[in-house]
């Protein structure tokens, strides 16, 4: 089966249950479809709901919140960090249909990182390389490995005259034969399973010369998973610190009147005594004329829409880390009583997002609770 960077596409999905972090997905209800086409690819659905996970390989993808489309090499490579996911994304090698924020916001918190699956065969096949001839003086052994289950197999290893050779299949005249499930073998060799427990608990069966079995360990160097060696050299100690210095910002006279106006459901601006432009929100000075603007005027409350921005990717709020629900729309508008160059930006009522067009009239929607702050003005909606 096709491997990429030493792993298979299905490994990523098969390991998801073990890598799942339920505490990271509170409130998440999403079905992510994966469409990986190429050798070793396939289709999978990953459903996260009520902090539980369901992963299924499917022939056809059902309706999903979002579908990730890629090729096996890019998919595996980016999961392993061998390929820069952001670059692959930018170059169109990973594509999405549907709500992309479901993926960007959910996946990093839902699973611990994928690490290459270690297979029994890889461990056995690396034994000749790891063999230490200097420890094998006078040793003459034939060891059989009979590993059952998925990724299992049978091998025979001959240690003689300071050499170590390996072949497929189980010879009948082995000095000692080790029988166990393949994943137990992997666990023992990666330090994840305690040998005493495995032997004592009957998970490992040894036939033949038990003492000979005991001596084999020192004949081989420790198994290192592919990439583990590099990781040691690259280990980064990363300290994350969020410096926070609380601030008390002054509104000043003019923004003070702006917020006071919002509390009273009034949109307040200042008119320049020279060029008569109306600045919303109000400012102490007209930038064009460079003169003081203390002439407060009320504008609107209705406005004419000039431009609309529909936001699909919401950057996290730098203070709270929260992400707005997307998509949402913002509009640039000119108030009734305003002046043509001076536009005001505000969000549009989500229910109007699909209908809103330049030229339309909009009106403000006020928060029922107002205290002279940013949240007093909720958004604008179509005035019809």
């Amino acid at each position, binding site marked *: 089966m096709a491997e990429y960077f030493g792993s298979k596409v299905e490994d990523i999905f098969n390991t998801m249950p073990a890598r799942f972090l339920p505490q990271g997905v509170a409130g998440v209800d999403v079905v992510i479809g994966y469409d990986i086409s190429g050798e070793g690819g396939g289709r999978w659905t990953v459903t996260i709901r009520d902090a539980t996970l369901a992963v299924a390989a499917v022939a056809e993808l059902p309706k999903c919140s979002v579908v990730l489309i890629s090729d096996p090499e890019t998919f595996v490579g980016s999961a392993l960090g061998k390929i820069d996911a952001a670059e692959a994304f930018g170059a169109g090698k990973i594509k999405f249909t549907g709500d992309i924020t479901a993926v960007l916001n959910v996946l990093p918190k839902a699973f611990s990182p994928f690490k290459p699956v270690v297979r029994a065969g890889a461990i056995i096949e690396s034994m000749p390389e790891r063999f230490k001839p200097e420890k094998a003086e006078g040793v003459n052994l034939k060891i059989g490995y009979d590993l059952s289950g998925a990724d299992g197999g049978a091998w025979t290893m001959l240690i003689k005259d300071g050499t170590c050779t390996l072949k497929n299949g189980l010879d009948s005249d082995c000095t000692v034969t080790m029988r166990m499930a393949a994943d137990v073998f992997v666990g023992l060799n990666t330090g994840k399973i305690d040998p005493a427990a495995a032997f004592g608990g009957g998970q490992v069966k040894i036939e033949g010369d038990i003492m000979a079995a005991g001596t084999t360990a020192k004949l081989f160097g420790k198994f290192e998973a592919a990439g583990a060696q590099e990781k040691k050299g690259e280990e980064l100690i990363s300290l994350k610190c969020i410096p926070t210095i*609380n601030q008390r*910002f*002054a509104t000043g006279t*003019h923004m003070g009147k702006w917020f006071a106006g919002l509390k009273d459901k009034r949109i307040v601006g200042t008119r320049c005594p020279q060029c008569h432009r109306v600045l919303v929100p109000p400012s*102490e*000075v007209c930038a064009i004329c460079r003169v*003081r603007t203390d002439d407060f005027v009320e504008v609107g409350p209705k406005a004419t829409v000039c431009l609309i921005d529909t936001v699909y990717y919401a950057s996290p709020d730098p203070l709270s880390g929260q992400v707005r629900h997307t998509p949402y729309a913002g509009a640039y508008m000119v108030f009734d009583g305003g002046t043509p160059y001076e536009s005001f930006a505000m969000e549009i009522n989500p229910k109007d997002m699909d209908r809103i067009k330049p030229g339309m009239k909009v009106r403000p929607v006020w928060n029922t609770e107002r205290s002279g702050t940013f949240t007093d003005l909720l958004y604008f909606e179509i005035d019809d």
Partner: protein
Amino acid sequence: MKKVAICAVAQHKIEPDIWYKRFQGMLLEILEDIQSQTGFTFDEENGVHDIVTCSDDVFDARTISDNGMTDVVGAHYRGEEKMAQDGLNALGYAMSMILSGHDDVVYVAGHSKESQGESRNMATNLAYDPFYARCLGFDYLNAAGLQARAYMAKSKITDRQLAQVVVRARKWASRNPNANAREQLSLGDVMYSPMLCAPIRTRHAYPVSDGAVGLLLASEKRAHEFTDNPVWITGFGCCMDRYFLGDRDLASNFALKQASGRAYKMAGIKDPKKTVDVVELMDCYAYQQPMWLEGLGLADDGQGGAFIDASGPASYNVNLSGGHLAGTPLIIGGLYRAVEAVLQLKCKAGEHQAADAECALVQSTTGGAGQFHTVLVLEH
């Protein structure tokens, strides 16, 4: 060498908490003040084309902290550049804009509110490298504490002499309507004030301050359009010392000596002791007054204590404004010092005026324990 003139200056009264105005409101008053003094405009042909601002993004908690000031410094469809070091350096830079021929007239405006953030020390702690010094908890206060120790030992400064510096600063501040801390203090008030960061006592440290300043600079050729009483920048120098406190001889005044040497050379001053009439220096903490005076060559090396006893600061008209010690916001400290020095030379310093001021020395620091110094020589 061609000279650059400071035609007019304006300062916002320095207060501990200007909660009732935002920066834009403060700077508008500054602009109006300078315009009423000089009649300068931003006219496309012969007005100001380029502006130099000075503010601190960390203290303002605002990226590109000049972007909120564009409107009020006249920079709409004009050029503007933000000096991100102490503002005295902005004057050196503005001077280069004029001497280069790129500009004839430059408007310089700075703002800062130390009261906006909950702690100045938390802000200056961020000036230290994130792996070592920052984790140790360094900030500009405790760096100054270390330097104060070293300097007081070298120049035999006593606690009493520091108190004299503070008492004198308050005395002069009370005559300066723009000064922040004007409460009169006795020697005992200072000497028995609690330790803030030993050997720096609470009364040795400059109080939290908010302010804004503006200056109009012009080429020699055009200065007369804006004032008949120009003050000339005849010398400028600045110098960087090492970052790690352990790499520095904290009491050596290395950077200040280099900076003042460069400024004197440009001004053609061979003996500052004979030439300098008035000094405005940036004494954030009391020990810095005698220390910077040594670095400026007005007090002899290692003789800071004796200098104070001999009333050296009075004889050189040091900090008749009250100085930084009476309270000035950090990033524009040097600009306030320059403004006060200009007022002295123009004979507009009111009740804190020195007699016969012809040559003023202005000094400021950036960084912890005076890592970087800037010196300006102004002449009438």
